[in-house]
């Protein structure tokens, strides 16, 4: 059975999004792309040199670009970066990152909502990066976000699904795809997110900081696929519940209602 998911009418086969930062050399990027099987790659607009050789030259043809507004500290800056990306031919998808706390690098939900609303109205396909907060997520959907991208743990921390409970609530309540972004350092963590029902994962540091990024990209690919398959299959039980208890303290009264 084909298992695709769709963002703004674009059907995607791969549920692993990757990034372009933190590699020892940008020349690794094509091999990482191939090994990961990804179709979407995010690139920081501040790294894109207009008319110069740079990261863009290493992104294989056919990959869908997801420019991000990394470096923006306000909604206004994020909006300007998005418009620049579009003007530079990067398409109309944009990942909104608005971070004004340089110590923890946590996203600013309020500014992200403002930027999302403005850009969605201009026809951008907006993928906002946020703390997994239900109210912010709902506001983003109302503002026109195509997906919601909650962080699993602080960006670059490789600490896994620290916000698991909150992401679970978003998966349960939010009607657009939930793409887990930031903090996934091991393939098992990405697998866990997919088992929970995330639509996709975005992994950059977990791959780029590995001793062998190409092999790790492949490992994440397999993990995301495994998690997705497990989600569809449904997790199994742990043996017969009936054997664990001989008496029926909670429903024993039903025998009495029959006898009465």
């Amino acid at each position, binding site marked *: 059975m084909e298992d695709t998911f769709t963002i703004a009418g674009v059907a995607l086969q791969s549920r692993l999004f990757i990034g372009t930062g933190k590699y020892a050399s940008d020349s690794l990027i094509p091999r990482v792309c191939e090994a990961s099987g990804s179709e979407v790659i995010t690139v920081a607009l501040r790294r894109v040199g207009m008319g110069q050789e740079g990261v863009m030259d290493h992104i294989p043809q056919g990959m869908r670009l997801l420019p991000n507004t990394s470096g923006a500290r306000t909604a206004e800056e994020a909006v300007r970066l998005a418009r620049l990306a579009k003007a530079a031919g990067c398409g109309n998808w944009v990942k909104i990152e608005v971070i004004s706390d340089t110590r923890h690098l946590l996203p600013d939900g309020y500014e992200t909502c403002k930027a999302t609303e403005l850009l969605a109205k201009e026809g951008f396909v907006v993928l906002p990066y946020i703390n997994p907060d239900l109210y912010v997520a*709902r506001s983003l959907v109302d503002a026109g976000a195509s997906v919601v991208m909650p962080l699993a743990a602080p960006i670059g921390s490789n600490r896994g699904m620290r916000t698991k409970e909150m992401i*679970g609530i978003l998966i*349960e*309540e939010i009607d657009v795809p939930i793409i887990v972004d930031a903090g996934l350092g091991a393939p098992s963590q990405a697998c866990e997110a997919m088992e929970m029902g995330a639509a996709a994962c975005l992994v950059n540091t977990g791959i780029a900081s590995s001793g062998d990024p190409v092999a790790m990209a492949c490992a994440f690919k397999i993990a995301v696929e495994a998690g997705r398959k497990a989600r569809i299959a*449904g*997790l*199994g*039980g*742990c*043996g*017969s*519940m*009936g054997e*664990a*208890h001989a008496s*029926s*303290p*909670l*429903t024993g*009264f*039903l025998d*009495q*209602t*029959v006898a*009465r």
Partner: protein
Amino acid sequence: METISEYLARWPAAQRSDFVRHVTRENVYAVLNKETLDVRDFLTLLSPMAQPELEAIAKKANDITLRFFGRAVNLFTPLYISDVCTNQCRYCGFNAKNTQKRTHLSVKEACEEAMFLHNGGHRHILLLTGDARTLSSPDYIADVVRAIKPYFASIGIEVYALQRDEYAMLVEAGVDSMTMFQETYDPSLYAWLHPVGPKHDYLFRLNAPTRAAESGIRSIGVGALLGLAPFEQDTFATGLHAFWLQHNFPGVDIGISIPRICPHEGSFEVKYPVDDRHFVQYVLALRCFLPRCSITCSTRESAFMRDHLIPLGVTRVSAGVSTAVGGRAKGGEQHAGQFEITDHRSLAEMVAAIERIGYQAVIKDWEDPTASSASTACA
């Protein structure tokens, strides 16, 4: 926003039956191991394969209930203010064709009845009328609400389906909750059961909770009358309706009532009687699927059944109930009620029974912090 009709249409009868037919015991165990249940899991717990596992499901339901509600049971009492009705619902004691004497309380009489209940200790009240818009108009209901508001912490309504602005007007008057029984979610069966009167309009009734939610009401209860349709059909649809409301109106408390029609009720032949085991299965499945929904059990059920359902998920019960209109305040004669009561316990008896099983009876659970004493209050 996907409408409730569209949402329910995602599960046509054939698909539901096919799913249920293929449920295995292993599927039931798998659901019991899950933290959050989806719609398929709910249907799995309603399937025949879940019947042998009731005790295991009860343990899960009991655990969920304790986690989300603690050992607390909310109490309320109904006040019927009019049994004049233009509908001819085939199963209902208020059927317009029934020749019983009808009573429509004036606002003053309704106040006297309400004061009687207030003096008896009740603080959460549910106002009920038959479906007769001319006589029991929204303005009439609002007048009663305004008059009794100072004496009750919470006022709910269980009346005919209203328009959105009418719900808003009643919220403004002091109503904080509404209950709307769809009776059955099968449109053709619904049409047969409600042949005459405004209630014949299936969609207008189905969309009433949505209109109430849009009006800013604080809590909404839905339910089907168990026994009218095949077990899995209406139980499943009721859960879906509550789930849909909860999802689309996260600021509104959603509750479910579980009325079960008795086989011996009047001359109406109950085609799909729900036995006790299936009734309990329904409560358990609801609790596991919708952990935060209140579940209300009326005095249609026996004291024995109601007491045993509390640990399994029921969080709200009525007490000191009469389904007839008027007569309590002056101790006069009461006419036939809407349905037969099986549990006749007073508020004090109900409180004592709840405490006996180790739970706390909560008589006042909410009061509108913006409400002020109305000048039209009854003295």
